[in-house]
């Protein structure tokens, strides 16, 4: 498996777009991790009524917002919020979806029918709407936002993993392992998860970017991360008020979303091509 | 000497990508008369399909290069024809049957439509729609498919039937030359025989010349007038079917091919496969390209390209017989 990763990385290195994406996302992650050291002003929630709506300048790179806070600082701290949200929700939904999908595929029969029926029904509700209704039931706030977008993301993972499991379970070596009396969870762990890694990694990369977009949309509607916490969607929602007077307020948080989503998509595309050279066009 | 229908002279074809150059065909020459059948045999990857596609100019435009050679069809060099003229040659004068009937038909068009299209694009005589539809019916029945199935889609046909449809498309305009690229490889053995018999029959009926690409020597014996044995983009041996099956001198590769099929008359414990693999076409051995696998390899073979030994119609490119051209010619 290790060799496999090396091989995949070697193939990815040839893909310029994917490498650009990888560099950008690494930079964004570093920014998020070291946000406190990079940002010129202290954690960007302190208000300063004297410095409201200053246009970008050398002291305030991205200008200041309606409350006199440094936008550059807030964008940088926003990276932390958005990336964490994207990563955590993807991780939980991958594990949750993975368990459901693996069980459905491995045990088959009624359990499979039941799980897939439920997931199919959930998928009939568009992601955004499902997340909205969960937020509506639980109330807004970062924790509930996390739950909402995680749940809406579980069916996708479950389906992918089920498909992988189904294709593997048919193989003779699984029969052999079963015949030897290997425990179920061990078979799932040793044989199936390893084979499913590729599709999961691709889906996870794509999912992080989708989750960032979804979280930003909900926050933009005022139903996700609540002000004054710095989050890109929330910042855009606040910026709307000053659209006429301070259009730059809208540009930077939006650009930050585009940049992180774009770089993740590039990496995802690159991974897909590297894992399955056949599909490369 | 009357003008040959098809003459291929010194044809070379390469595939060039950023990373490497594949030497697919390396100087082959042959000629074909009306109604004649040439068999080209060889392993997968010998360049047979590439050579065939080049006659129709269907090689992938982005990578394929033809640095040398001529393909003369009725005296005209096809390689120099403008694309529009070439298009009217395709399907009308030269047709091709592809290897896999399962994927060779468009899944969302009826078989009737697909045959009709061949006629519609070569409608020089100004047939009406009804006349062309009637021709579609005729052609279908020619290949043994009832005309009632005209409105059916490819997925409703079995493999053998699909190949009949493919043949019907190729023969719809009664071409002078038919190129069949392993037409029966993908079919069951019993169906293979049927399809081959039908092709033979039609060939005689329509007096079509044919290039039959195959790796089945049995098929060659049944259908061909001449045979070329292809290895790594070259014809290592060329001759009439009679030459190939009865002459006592052969290229070691041809011997190898014969050694790897069962023979009813000679008792052997096991078949004699040819050792090794086809050379990498991006990095062909110098000298004789078969030398790394040749059981009779000599010093000279790895250094110098073999000359051609000729005996009547029989040509062999091998050092074993060099110097004997004069005495036997």
């Amino acid at each position: 498996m290790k060799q496999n990763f090396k091989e995949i990385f070697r193939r990815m290195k040839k893909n310029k777009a994917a490498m650009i994406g990888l560099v950008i996302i690494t930079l964004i992650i570093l920014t998020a991790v070291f946000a406190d050291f990079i940002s010129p002003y202290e954690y960007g929630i302190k208000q300063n009524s004297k410095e409201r709506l200053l246009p970008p300048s050398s002291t305030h790179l991205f200008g200041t917002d309606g409350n006199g806070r440094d936008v550059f600082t807030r964008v940088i701290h926003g990276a932390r919020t958005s990336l964490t949200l994207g990563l955590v929700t993807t991780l939980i939904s991958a594990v949750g979806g993975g368990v459901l999908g693996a069980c459905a595929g491995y045990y088959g029969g009624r359990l499979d029918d039941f799980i897939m029926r439920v997931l199919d029904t959930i998928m009939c509700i568009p992601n955004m709407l499902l997340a909205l209704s969960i937020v509506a039931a639980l109330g807004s706030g970062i924790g509930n936002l996390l739950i909402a977008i995680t749940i809406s993301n579980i069916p996708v993972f479950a389906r992918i993993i089920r498909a992988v499991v189904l294709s593997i379970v048919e193989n003779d070596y699984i029969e052999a392992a079963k015949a030897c009396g290997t425990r179920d969870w061990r078979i799932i762990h040793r044989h199936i998860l390893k084979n499913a890694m590729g599709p999961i990694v691709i889906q996870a990369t794509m999912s992080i970017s989708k989750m960032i977009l979804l979280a930003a949309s909900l926050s933009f509607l005022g139903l996700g991360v609540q002000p004054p916490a710095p989050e890109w969607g929330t910042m855009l929602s606040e910026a709307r008020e000053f659209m006429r007077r301070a259009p730059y307020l809208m540009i930077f948080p939006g650009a930050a979303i585009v940049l992180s989503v774009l770089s993740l998509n590039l990496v995802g595309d690159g991974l897909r091509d590297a894992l399955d050279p056949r599909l490369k066009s | 000497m009357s003008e040959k229908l098809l003459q291929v002279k010194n044809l070379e074809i390469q595939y060039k990508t950023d990373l490497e150059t594949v030497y697919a065909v390396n100087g082959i020459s042959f000629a074909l008369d009306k109604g004649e059948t040439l068999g080209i045999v060889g392993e997968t990857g010998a360049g047979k399909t590439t050579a065939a596609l080049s006659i129709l100019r269907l090689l992938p435009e982005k990578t394929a290069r033809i640095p040398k050679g001529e393909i003369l069809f009725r005296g005209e060099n096809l390689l120099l024809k403008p694309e529009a003229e070439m298009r009217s040659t395709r399907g009308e004068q030269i047709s091709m049957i592809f290897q896999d009937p399962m994927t060779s038909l468009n899944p969302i068009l009826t078989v009737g439509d697909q045959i009709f299209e061949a006629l519609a694009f070569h409608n020089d005589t100004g047939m009406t729609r009804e006349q062309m539809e009637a021709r579609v019916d005729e052609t279908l029945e020619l290949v043994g498919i009832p005309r009632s199935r005209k409105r059916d889609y490819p997925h409703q046909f079995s493999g053998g039937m699909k190949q009949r449809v493919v043949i019907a498309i190729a023969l719809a305009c009664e071409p002078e030359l038919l190129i069949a690229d392993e037409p029966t490889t993908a079919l069951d053995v019993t169906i293979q025989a049927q399809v081959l018999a039908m092709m033979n029959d039609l060939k005689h009926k329509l007096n079509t010349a044919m290039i039959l690409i195959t790796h089945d020597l049995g098929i060659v014996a049944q259908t061909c007038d001449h045979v070329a044995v292809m290895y790594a983009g070259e014809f290592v041996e060329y001759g009439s079917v009679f030459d190939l099956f009865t002459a006592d001198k052969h290229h070691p590769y041809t011997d190898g091919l014969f050694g790897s099929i069962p023979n009813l008359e000679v008792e052997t414990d096991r078949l004699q496969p040819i050792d090794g693999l086809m050379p990498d076409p991006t990095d062909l051995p110098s000298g004789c390209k078969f030398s790394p696998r040749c059981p009779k390899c000599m010093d000279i073979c790895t250094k110098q390209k073999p000359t051609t030994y000729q005996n009547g119609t029989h040509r062999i490119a091998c050092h074993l017989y060099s110097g004997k051209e004069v005495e036997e010619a």
Partner: protein
Amino acid sequence: MIRYVLKRLLLMIPVLLGVAFIVFSVMSLAPGDPARAILGENATQEQLDMLNTQLGVDQPFLIRFGTFVVNVVTKLDFGLSYNSQRPVFDEIFTRFPYTLRLAVLGVIFSSIIGISIGVFSAIKQYSPFDTISTILALFFASVPGFWFGMMLILLFALQLGLLPSNGLDTVKHYILPTLSIAIPYSAGILRLTRSTMLETVRQDYIRTAKAKGVTEWVIIWKHAFRNALLPVITQLGNVFGQLLGGAVVIETVFAIPGLGSHIVNAIRMKDTPVVMASVMLLAFFFCLVILAVDLLYAFVDPRIKAKYARR
């Protein structure tokens, strides 16, 4: 074929029930007291208890769901809005057409843009046109629709003053919202069309068509395009679903009085019945679209058509 359509329509019933059940369960997690929400802070405990009994709040969950379904099916009764005290259905029904129009316009324009540019990109693979459209598609696939909408407002409404930025009164009003939905989604369609088209032109039957002497134009449009379209059609159903979700946000950006902005307001007001009914209505609609796409697919692809014709 008609039997197949009927069968599929019948199979919709459990799906719709399932969707209703999920939304209903989620919404019943909402804390709070419906009677309190309706009657307000000043109501007495007696009044509250009476209304709660009347609403069936104290009934077991499944009974409540059953009553809800029966009311919806027989009377189109989704309950009363906590906020306006009016029947929810009346409220959402007047708003639904706006959302629907926006989503349909979005699907139409995103498929026209995505499919046509995707096909030309594939035909002219590696050309400057292809490179530029591929890069733009990558970019727009990463742009949040609501931000793109705000940028459009900034440019066309505020800076240039060419187009209105609020509401949906005239045809002009539709331009910016439609664009901000259609362009980001067209990016995904473009990428899919391009790759399936590239995949299709490599198929054996395209070579057969070439060997027949068919012209390039016919090969592209009759042979390749029609086959490449099949996976794109399947995808369009999903795009429509995402688009319905996207419309919710776009409506807020452009202050359009549709179902989406209504949901957002209802969530802020904690008006659970309105949220539930709106989400359900949109989800039902999405299910119908998926069904329509499936039927369309069966109609276009003879392989599937034949499979069902025999049944």
